């Protein structure tokens, strides 16, 4: 039995929940968002990923209504949001600082938004209890925010922002403060809650691992623009630019000139070295500048010359980074390029054959890397 793949962005009949149309946001001379157009669909877990100052937080604050676009329009569920203040939007936000009200108990924090809606007492109590159960906080209902742990506070913030059952939930670096173990657990918890409630989540993060784990689609941003939007797997395996390839995970980039040859492209990258052979759907002109990007785990390392590899070259081991489950070898080629090759440590360390200064071969297939124009 096959599961239907969740991909509303590929369905032309699907109406997007959020539409950014040519949105520009300036702060004085600084352009935070530069003519950005993007659709986000209902029930998506959409991640905005980028370095600080790339405009991801500004995008989120415009969705919440704390900032207004300088130019362009934002639609949520088909409605132009230009004149709608934050308190009139079916959007809630989980703040980076959590912003829990210190003078109110956990229960009252979660009930805060519901009370503003003027619901009756029983309905509020029922909803708050439901939220407390969902986030496993029932025991702490009467505590004040300063009497609970960091992880619990983070769950209170989530419960409070979900209590009003918003169409859209915004998460601003929600897990930044948690330690790694707790963060990973919480990521799965977030995905679980997102699935249970069917809410659309937009998350802002600078942590690529987090974006890859939780998101249905990742938007990689730089200088107020979205460079690429795709599923985590596509972003990793088929980045559209050197910037994206470099931002997500570890990568080797080798630049050279293209020599198209049928379906394959040969890349002339250094004198006296064999051309790199790669496969691509993009048309490259002869002599055009081309960048070859390959992930370290797709580069094989061996002491013997590999017999049938499409690409192979000799070098010597410069450095070894031992990470427990994997090791990364930095191999220096005679041209001065350093290529990173990664292998899984399936054997115990004592039996490792390659060590510092060893002459080695690095090799990869003709489909292992990506060919990029920019």
């Amino acid at each position, binding site marked *: 039995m096959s599961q239907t793949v969740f991909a509303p962005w590929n369905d032309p009949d699907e109406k997007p929940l959020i539409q950014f149309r040519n949105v520009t946001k300036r702060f004085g001379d600084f352009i935070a968002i530069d003519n950005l157009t993007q659709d986000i669909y209902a029930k998506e877990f959409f991640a905005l990923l980028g370095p600080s100052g790339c405009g991801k937080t500004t995008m989120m604050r415009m969705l919440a209504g704390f900032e207004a676009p300088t130019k362009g329009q934002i639609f949520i569920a088909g409605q132009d949001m230009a004149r709608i203040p934050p308190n009139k939007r079916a959007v809630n936000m989980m703040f*980076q600082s959590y912003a829990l009200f*210190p003078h109110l108990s956990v229960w009252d924090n979660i009930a805060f938004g519901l009370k503003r809606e003027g619901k009756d007492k029983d309905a509020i109590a029922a909803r708050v209890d439901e939220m407390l159960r969902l986030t496993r906080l029932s025991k702490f209902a009467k505590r004040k925010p300063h009497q609970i742990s960091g992880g619990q506070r983070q769950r209170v913030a989530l419960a409070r922002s979900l209590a*009003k059952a918003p169409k859209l939930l915004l998460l601003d670096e929600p897990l930044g403060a948690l330690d790694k173990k707790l963060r990973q657990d919480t990521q799965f918890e977030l995905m679980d809650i997102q699935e249970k409630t069917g809410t659309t989540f937009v998350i802002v993060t600078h942590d690529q691992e987090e974006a890859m784990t939780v998101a249905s689609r990742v938007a990689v941003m730089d200088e107020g623009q979205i460079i690429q939007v795709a599923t985590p797997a596509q972003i990793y395996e088929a980045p559209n630019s050197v910037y994206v390839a470099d931002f997500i995970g570890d990568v080797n980039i080798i630049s050279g000139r293209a020599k198209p040859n049928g379906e394959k492209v040969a890349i002339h990258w250094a004198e006296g070295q064999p051309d790199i052979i790669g496969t691509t759907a993009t048309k490259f002109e002869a002599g055009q500048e081309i960048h070859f990007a390959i992930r370290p785990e797709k580069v094989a390392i061996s002491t013997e010359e590999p017999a049938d590899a499409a690409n192979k070259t000799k070098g010597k081991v410069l450095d070894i980074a031992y990470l427990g489950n994997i090791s990364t070898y930095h191999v220096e080629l005679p041209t001065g390029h350093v290529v990173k090759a990664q292998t899984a440590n399936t054997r115990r360390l004592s039996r490792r054959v390659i060590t510092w200064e060893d002459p080695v071969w690095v090799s990869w297939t003709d489909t292992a890397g990506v060919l990029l124009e920019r």
Partner: protein
Amino acid sequence: MRRFSWFNATALSLGFAFLYIPMIILVVYSFNASKLVTVWAGFSTQWYGELIRNEEFLNAAWVTIKVAVMSSTIATVLGTMAAYVLVRAGRFSGRTLFSGMIYAPLVMPEVITGLSLLLLFIGIGLDRGVLTIVLAHTTFSMCYVSVVVSSRLVSFDQSLEEAALDLGCSAFDAFRLVTLPIIAPAVISGWLLAFTLSLDDLVIASFTTGPSATTLPIKIFSAVRLGVSPEINALSTIMIAIVTVGVITASLITKQAAVRQARDERMAERPA
């Protein structure tokens, strides 16, 4: 090493003597049985009894308290509003000028403040009395309130207000339900500060008062010109007590509650 060397002890006692000996003498002589201020003739509380029967002093005290309560309340409302706008409104043209101007009355000589207010009241034809003193006291104590409140607002996490807006509050509700409860200690201590300032003001009050309204400091000042009486000592002792309690309470509230609130707020945020 001894912490209290003879030098430290002397310096400390000299400093405190300088500050408090005049007041201690005043308090001690208020319990003097003799009518002569400078001759000690045994302990007595008769002057306090006499004070309670003195209608003029009681009237003046009532006027003073009325003025202090009214002016400090108005000053607290206005000062809090001013502080809120100056801290929160972001950049608008002339913001630096405005925030500088709000502190100016702190350093302005009282004589000038009093004189300018007097000219204003005469100019607009306002009869001088309780109302004019209230207005004058509001004017100068407002800036103290705004200094106290704005220093609290600066350390206030603005995302708390944004969270309130996000959860459906109007701007006013966000202030009433989130900001005000959190900054309440600063507002209360601002009120107490304004109250004590108004209570002991002589200069501005004497410029802006009229024949119908005599405050206690004015009364004491004019009485002393006819000679110091033990009754005045008793009255002054009571005022010292009130002001001391007011100031100590204000500083306790600011210190303790603000420390606690800041801690709660920090704890309500993510761990660093």
